[in-house]
């Protein structure tokens, strides 16, 4: 059962990811990115990280991507132009991409050859309570720092995006 679920959503994630890269129009790549995030959320659930899954959906899909969609809609820039695609980049890029992929997987396999098998109920530690407890005890300082970071981001965004008051 898990395998099927994993394969399904992994496939969705990969397809959407490729779509993100390949699509010319940003909106379509944005939506496919949302698709990736959704499938990832499900994979998190498979890995027992309930809180993170929900957070992923709320924060990533629900908030960040909305920003993206908003910006794309506002700018309405339209599809990327086809020209300027240098052949060499592609010739160099694609094998390079696969080389990178092989390199990554090699390191992963080398580091974790006998990783444990993932079963749905295998690890139930990811509930909101556990995450919350740890977050506010051991990781309190980073938590506060990130809140400050968010504040800065907000102020930054406001200042940057504000239309000049003529």
């Amino acid at each position, binding site marked *: 059962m898990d395998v099927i679920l994993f394969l399904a959503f992994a496939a969705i994630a990969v397809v959407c990811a490729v779509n993100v890269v390949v699509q010319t129009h940003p909106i379509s790549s944005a939506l496919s990115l949302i698709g990736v995030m959704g499938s990832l959320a499900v994979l998190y659930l498979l890995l027992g990280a309930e809180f993170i899954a929900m957070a992923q959906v709320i924060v990533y899909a629900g908030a960040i991507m909305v920003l993206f969609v908003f910006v794309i809609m506002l700018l309405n820039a339209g599809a990327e132009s086809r020209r300027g695609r240098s052949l060499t980049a592609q010739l160099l890029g694609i094998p390079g991409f696969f080389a990178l992929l092989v*390199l990554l997987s090699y390191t992963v396999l*080398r580091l974790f050859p006998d990783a444990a098998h993932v079963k749905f109920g295998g690890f139930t530690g990811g509930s909101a309570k556990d995450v919350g407890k740890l977050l506010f005890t051991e990781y309190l300082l980073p938590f506060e720092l990130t809140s400050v970071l968010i504040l800065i981001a907000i102020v930054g965004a406001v200042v940057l995006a504000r239309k000049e008051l003529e």
Partner: protein
Amino acid sequence: MQHLWLIPVLPLLGFLLNGLFGRRLAKGAVTAIALGSVLLSFAWVVKTLVGLGALETAYIERYFTWFQSGDLRVGADLSVDRLTAVMLLVVTGVGSLIHIYAVGYMTHEGGYYRFFAYLNLFMFFMLVLVLGANFLLLFVGWEGVGLCSYLLIGFYFLKKSATDAGKKAFIVNRIGDFGFSLAMLLIVITFGSLDFGAVFPAAASKPESTLTLIGLLLLLGACGKSAQAPLYVWLPDAMEGPTPVSALIHAATMVTAGVYMVARSSAIYLHAHAAQEMVAYIGLGTAVFAATIGLAQNDIKKVFAYSTVSQLGYMFLGLGAGAFSAGIFHLVTHAFFKALLFLGAGSVIHALEGEQDLRHMGGLRTRIPVTFWTLACAWVAIAGIPPFAGFHSKDAILLAAHHHAPWMYWVGVLTAAMTAFYVSRAMFLAFFGEPRGHHHPHESPPVMTAPLAVLALLSLAGGFLDVPKFLEPLFPLSEGAHDFALVAISVVAGLAGIGLAALFYVVKPGLADAVANALGGLYTLVYNKYFVDELYDAAVVRPVETGSREALWKGVDAGLIDGAANGVASIARATGGLLRLIQSGNIRSYATWVVFGSILVLVAIGLVGGGAR
């Protein structure tokens, strides 16, 4: 307490007075101060010697410690023994005579007070040299005398040749001093002190090899000072100075310093046979070599200069052969007749208003008779004619040489013959034959002719002073048989020399030039002093100068060190330029660099592996 210090201090006082106030004092006052100080010093010498009596052992007076470092103590101590006595008499005696002569000679020359100030300074240093009780004081005198010779040779400082000669004299002396100072260093290492009293008695117990090295270094110093073989080149040029200077310094006193120093350190040489042998060889070599050059010189002072070098060679031969007293005896007699020769030449030049070339002289016998007769005395003395001074001292040396090594005797005799020849040549060219050149000579004033007369007397009677017996306690006499035959041969050689010269220059004047042309190359070689000066110049001075300019100053300083500093700066700039390329402003190139970096990290992790299992 004989107040030995007064002897050197009096000329020093004369120097200071003339030096500081000479410009404002009248000429008479300057003469008075200069002559007074030297004559007083001579008187004081006589008084002390009379006061000290037999002087079997050295009489030392210690004044103050010059400097002391750890166990090495150098004191300002003066000492007199029989050897010093002889030297004192010669220096102050001949010195005062020459001072008197100089008054006449220098009357109408510029810088009158300056000349006498330097002369007094010279007397001071010479006396310090002679009286010094340790090597260092001797060295002080040694260098001081070198300084004065520099000043006096370069007296006519407007002439570049004079100042060059002065500089050359000083530097060659300095090379000699280099050897002397190294010897002193070695003495301190081996003996622990510089005082004669401490060094010479202990000489016997020291290893032969060290003593030889000390002896050789001392010899190097002596050669520098007494113009022996390798370092004689400065003496002929020293003739640039005024004649009294040549007489005093380059005939009577300074050049003899080397002989005195070797004699003084006889104890070292006696225990270092190799060194003593070397002294003999150098002496003999210089004698022969200088004599040959003397044959072909046309300048009257150059002839006498080379004769001095040759006579000094004789003295060194005497010392080398072990007859120290004979050497000193020759020194004394040589002082008399060589001073006379130079002063005579001086009066000749004075008479001919500065003409020094023999070929422009002639027939002066009748015009300046006093000078002629006084010079004649010197002539016969130097040629070694029996009753006179030269004969006694030269034969003593020849006998000692024969006793030491027979072949040396024969070379010595040959040199004697040559000496007789060139002196006679000079006399004949100057005084006999018709007057050449356009001068109308006039006799020198009495103030000049008087010292000449005294010296003439001394060179005639000098032989009977019997200095060797006087120095007997210091230097044991070598009891060589007084072989009459040898003496006869040397006398015959002398007479042969005179005869030959007469043949060449009086009987058949043309003959000399004919022989010169016949010899051709050999003659020019000898005439040009075997090109020794040019050789030295090319071999030493030129390379050192260009080498240090190009290689050292430009090459090392500017190139190497400054270059390295600037090099570092340029490297920094180059790397900066290289790094700048990365900041190309194109975002995608930044991206590629970022990815490239991450790949590197990944590869590192992949290879290194590890990490939490």
